[in-house]
């Protein structure tokens, strides 16, 4: 117990003194996961909206696939990206394995199904409510779906925050394709795993606290957006 308390004390000390290594690791984590979330959002929101209105043979299979990929293990994504980017892989000539770019690619693939599947559900529900009205006003099906992203923008933001939370908390994919290289690809989760295995519990604990704080901020943002959505209406009633 005293060892745990000592670890927490050291962690707080590192945070309060803005330890350079700690800040660098946290900064890289935020940069990689933030970029991955934005990249996945660009594709996932459009894919989710389109799949909510598309009708083609195999549509059900696509939906099933998207929903199944919600549970995609991060280490599997890491392995696939590793095989693609390794020197003998089809994209080996890019030479980006063990770089932050590779980590962004892996996390993008990891959270893309989350954004697409949740967006499809969200847009589908809203279309059942107002799709006929928008069509009556002259909107084509894809336009209706894209308008629902505007209509449900607070819920869409919640989806994006949840996707960011999944990205920043995962360890498998970034470990495999990033290699956990000190000062280059070392992020919070991989550092926690490494320092724990080395027995340097204070740093691991400090990073754990920061990671929890980041996830806490993410959850607070979700709460604020939901409350903001509610009060925007309640305030004028």
């Amino acid at each position, binding site marked *: 117990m005293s060892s745990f308390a000592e670890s927490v004390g050291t962690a707080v000390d590192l945070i309060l003194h803005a330890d350079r290594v700690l800040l660098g690791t946290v900064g890289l984590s935020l940069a990689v996961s933030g970029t991955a979330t934005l990249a996945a959002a660009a594709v996932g929101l459009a894919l989710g909206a389109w799949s909510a209105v598309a009708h083609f043979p195999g549509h059900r299979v696509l939906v099933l696939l998207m929903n199944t990929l919600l549970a995609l293990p991060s280490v599997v994504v890491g392995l696939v990206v590793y095989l693609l980017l390794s020197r003998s892989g089809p994209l080996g000539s890019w030479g980006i394995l063990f770089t932050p770019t590779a980590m962004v690619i892996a996390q993008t693939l990891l959270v893309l199904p989350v954004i697409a599947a949740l967006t499809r559900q969200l847009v589908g529900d809203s279309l059942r409510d107002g799709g006929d009205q928008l069509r009556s006003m002259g909107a084509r099906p894809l336009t209706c779906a894209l308008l629902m992203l*505007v209509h449900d923008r607070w819920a869409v933001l919640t989806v994006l925050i949840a996707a960011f939370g999944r990205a920043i908390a995962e360890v498998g994919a970034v470990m495999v394709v990033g290699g956990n290289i000190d000062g280059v690809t070392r992020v919070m989760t991989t550092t926690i795993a490494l320092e724990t295995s080395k027995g340097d519990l204070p740093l691991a604990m400090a990073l754990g606290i920061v990671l929890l704080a980041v996830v806490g901020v993410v959850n607070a943002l979700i709460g604020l957006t939901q409350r903001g959505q509610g009060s925007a209406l309640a305030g004028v009633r």
Partner: protein
Amino acid sequence: MSLLSLDRVSVRFGAVQALHEVSLRIERGEFVALVGSNGSGKTTLLRTLHGMLRHQGRRELGTDAGRQVMVFQRPFVMRLSVANNLRLALWLDAVPRAQWDARVRAALGRVGLLGLEERPARALSGGQQQRLALARAWAVQPQLLFLDEPTASLDPTAKREVEALLAGFAIDGMTLVMSTHNLGQAKRLASRVIYLEAGEIHADLPTAEFFNGRLQGRAQQFLKGEAT
């Protein structure tokens, strides 16, 4: 030529025959009320007239049919301001941007919502949302307005306000087709009443004739409140 006509139109939802060989013509300036029991096919007929449903048979628009819009029982308004809901309708209708502000003001003035431009549309009362839906329809200046039980979920005051608006639209020359359960409303507003049962038209008469007590069979029973 009629504004819109159906010739032996049928609509089927799986095993359910929702409309069976319905033929009718909508003439310019009419206010047509579709009446009938639940499940009689009123909403299906409205949606078919509006071109929203696949059907068998012929649906023909007149050469000068122009714009058609539908207003639903539960108005769907976007989570935008009142003014932006109207601007969206104008954008979808490809109205030049230079005309938007004037059209928005005119439409809101028409339905008595001026001054609420920046109010979140979802914060309006049910009656106000229905008036906004009517303003949104009116803003694109449709030739033909379809209304699916537009006052069914409103309180008596809001119902009267919406009825007054619809009467005004009719006086302005707009052609309206409205489904309703409310026979009094049909009598007050419509110039022609169509009675539907089991997806078929059983009576199609000018309003005065429909209510003069000479109806026969199921239509007469419905009028007396005996049909279910």
